């Protein structure tokens, strides 16, 4: 990380930390929570889909694992309210380790088949969530005890938790990118077989980023579950969450540090705005599709790389 980059990062997060103290209405903070959440998700996805070049379409499953973990542990009592946040690192680690065998199987395939395999894993996870009723509550869902935070500042702890996770995702991205693992990943991304032939530890590095990515995604899912208070299988493990992550990453620029954040910053408020104001007409879906297509056709590389090339 260059000094300039460090300053940029510090300024960005510093500003975001101060925002809740300045902004009055709660709904703004609510919007920011979802924006930062998706920025974190997109950054986590970026590790696998951007830096490694493996477009995982099943990441929502990890989101769901984290959500259910929090729901199961904290169904009745959240102590002082911060207990769920304290257990997040453990959840992240457990999920990261648990996905290693799955990742190993899945990463034996490439690109399109990999995408489909990960989608399939997503459906399996969702089916399990529906059917293992004793564990997940099935279609009835699970509740999380309400947080005892005062109503005026209720959203703030969740906001800071999401912010911390975004920072973690970005720091890890920088650490990996600037390390030998990052070089290996770049090689894997361009041509995996050549990299393998040259002696790069292809499998090891792929598994590393997959595990890290899954762990962070799970932690974000845990905070989300706590915030919403009640989770259902089809929303905790939702293909549209994956699509959101992927689209934001593509929009901002894959394999860039700030691309996912930029993508989330544009799309989340736009989507909420569209739904809140225009949602009543079906134009909402069409608008979404149009945005998609325009991005893909005009900015296939994403915003940041296109801007850099233009310089």
């Amino acid at each position: 990380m260059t000094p300039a980059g460090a300053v940029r990062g510090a300024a960005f997060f510093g500003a975001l930390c101060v925002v809740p103290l300045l902004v009055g209405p709660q709904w703004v903070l609510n919007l920011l929570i979802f924006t930062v959440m998706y920025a974190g998700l997109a950054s986590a996805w970026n590790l696998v889909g951007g830096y490694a070049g493996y477009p995982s379409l099943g990441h929502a499953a990890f989101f769901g694992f984290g959500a259910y973990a929090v729901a199961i542990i904290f169904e009745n009592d959240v102590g002082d309210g911060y207990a769920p946040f304290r257990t997040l690192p453990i959840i992240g680690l457990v999920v990261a380790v648990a996905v290693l065998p799955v990742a190993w199987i899945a990463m034996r395939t490439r690109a399109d088949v990999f995408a489909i395999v990960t989608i399939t894993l997503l459906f399996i996870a969702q089916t399990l969530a529906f059917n293992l009723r004793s564990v997940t509550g099935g279609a009835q869902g699970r509740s999380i005890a309400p947080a005892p935070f005062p109503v005026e500042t209720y959203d703030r702890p969740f906001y800071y938790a999401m912010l911390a996770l975004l920072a973690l995702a970005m720091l890890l991205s920088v650490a990996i990118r600037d390390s030998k693992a990052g070089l290996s990943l770049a090689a894997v991304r361009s041509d995996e077989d050549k990299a393998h032939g040259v002696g790069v530890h292809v499998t090891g590095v792929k598994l590393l980023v997959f595990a890290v990515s899954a762990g962070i995604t799970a932690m974000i899912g845990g905070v989300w579950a706590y915030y919403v208070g009640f989770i259902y299988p089809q929303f905790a493990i939702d293909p549209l969450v994956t699509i959101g992550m992927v689209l934001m990453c593509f929009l901002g620029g894959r394999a860039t540090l700030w691309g996912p954040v930029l993508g989330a910053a544009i799309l989340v408020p736009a989507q909420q705005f569209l739904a809140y104001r225009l949602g009543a007409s079906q134009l909402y879906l069409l608008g979404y599709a149009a945005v998609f297509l325009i991005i893909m056709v005009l900015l296939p590389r994403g915003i940041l790389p296109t801007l850099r090339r233009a310089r």
Partner: protein
Amino acid sequence: MQLAAQAIILGVLTGGVYALMASGQTLIFGVMKVVNLAQGAFVVLSAYLTFSLFTGFGVDPFLAILITTPAMFGLGVAVHWLVLRPLKHEDVGQLSLLVTFAVALGVEGVLALAYETTYRSVQPGYENRSWTVAGLQISEVRLYAFGLSAVMLAALYLILERTRLGMAIRATVQNPTSARLLGVSSERVAALGFGLGAATAAAAGSVYGLLYPFNPGSHYDLISRLLTIVVLGGMGSVGGAVVAAMIMGVGSSIVAALASPIWSDFTFFVVLLAVLLIRPRGLFGARARGAL
């Protein structure tokens, strides 16, 4: 025993319809290396068109196929022209997923605007009739649908084997570079291949409305099944897709009838994963360059 036999019959008949839808999907992949996530949406679109033709003009769904198939063929070519062709070649793999998904969303949005989200189904009056053979019930509509699928798949086979377009398609699937060297216009082939894929969706869609209620959001469920069929059969292999569809149809029907209906889709996914572990290219897929 009776239960199993009945389940098998249902499974075979259902599998046939899925085979038709999946054949188009796998063909598109073979020709363009594009996973068409809008295939389900095309089926639903065709179901709606058939619905309108039936309720507005009294056209029988099986006859409506004569209208919907060419119409969707044209739509497929248009979609390819507008949306897929502009993609740069090296991005096609990853971006096509998102682009076709956007097309699916767009189709869903248009359908929701035009028809609202009420569930519809096509009910020409004979849709509940069934024959009793040796104590087993065979639904008339499903049998006709199966027959239609068989006919369309045969037609597809003839196109692929006997026409110049078919030869060009098969050449492009096997080896795009050589095909181009031999004078096959890969862009034209891609466009026509996509059109063919959409046409199969059209035919299947016309009967889909007879079998199941549908609304604009039904494509999600469809595409998940189609994707698993296509991967199981081997991406790019039409024959593989047919076999995989039959396996899926019979398999999930038997599990639903004999074990618990809740697990029927699940076991199918698990089987798929197991197959992929042992044979990543699916049952009949070609070995991808560079993959394991």
